[in-house]
């Protein structure tokens, strides 16, 4: 790799790390996932593995399985979102950028799976009037916010262990959500 291309790669890294770039990349990912889901004839459309037996396959195998299918869509979205960069940069740089764009995809995909699992837990243990928010990764641990449809200010969090099991106490979460209404 030449020194010039290394400089370009370094600049690309800085640009990719910018908050506004990350936000636009997330939009690309959302659109790519949505397109995959709406590919009605695609039998292998985006599905989250459900059930205890499937849990261990996350994140590596599941993410790898989606990398091929989603990668192409994400690159298309990436080129559409950043046409000036895609046009100006050498093809190798564009490929590098598309490849680097995968890095933020992994936690996004993981979050989608965790949200589906957390939704299943919430529907089994809390009720069908809860809202399951976007999973948040903080200090290496995932947490999923939950609130009430009719009273969004009532809020609690579901904690997940390293194997993505919800480890929150059902009664405590119910109490946190229902508590204010009973005061």
């Amino acid at each position, binding site marked *: 790799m030449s020194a010039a291309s290394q400089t370009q790669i370094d600049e690309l890294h800085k640009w990719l790390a910018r908050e506004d770039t990350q936000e636009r990349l997330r939009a690309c990912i959302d659109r790519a996932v949505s397109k995959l889901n709406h590919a009605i004839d695609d039998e292998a459309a985006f*599905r989250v593995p459900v059930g205890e037996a499937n849990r261990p396959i996350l994140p590596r195998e599941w993410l790898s399985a989606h990398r091929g299918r989603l990668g192409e869509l994400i690159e298309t979205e990436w080129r559409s979102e950043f046409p000036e960069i895609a046009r100006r940069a050498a093809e190798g740089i564009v490929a590098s950028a598309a490849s680097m764009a995968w890095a933020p995809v992994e936690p996004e995909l993981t979050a989608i799976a965790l949200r589906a699992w957390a939704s299943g837990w919430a529907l089994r243990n809390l*009720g069908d009037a809860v809202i399951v928010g976007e999973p948040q990764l903080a200090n290496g641990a995932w947490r999923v916010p939950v609130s009430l449809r009719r009273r969004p200010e009532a809020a609690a969090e579901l904690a997940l262990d390293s194997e993505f099991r919800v480890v929150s106490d059902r009664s405590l979460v119910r109490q946190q959500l229902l508590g204010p209404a009973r005061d």
Partner: protein
Amino acid sequence: MQWLGVVDEELAERLSRSCEETELGCDFDTAVRNLRQDYEIDEISGDEARVRLVVGDLVAPSPAIMLLPYDLVPFGSQFHAIVLLGFRPDSSTGREQAVFMDPVTGTEEVCSSNLFMIRWNLAGELALVVCA
């Protein structure tokens, strides 16, 4: 279940109490456990093939009660129960559609079976059948 004719309004209110409905709604496990006191309930969560077998049974098809996100977009986070009635090909495209009763609209709805199953998947794939 009211729509299916399994319960009338009065019984629906009693079931709401027995299923311990709160501001959180009804949780699936409690609802299934309590419904089993009066009905034969077949839980078919996480098994699309069985859902298809049950609703598509040629002799005695049974509607399936399933929990879905409200929205067709992939990340809808609010849920409700619908009654899946079956699958049929779209008359113009030939693509398979899911046919379901949506209590939100009170009418029979259709959407592509792929999207329907993705919605079900993103809500944890919970479903039950009230056996006749």
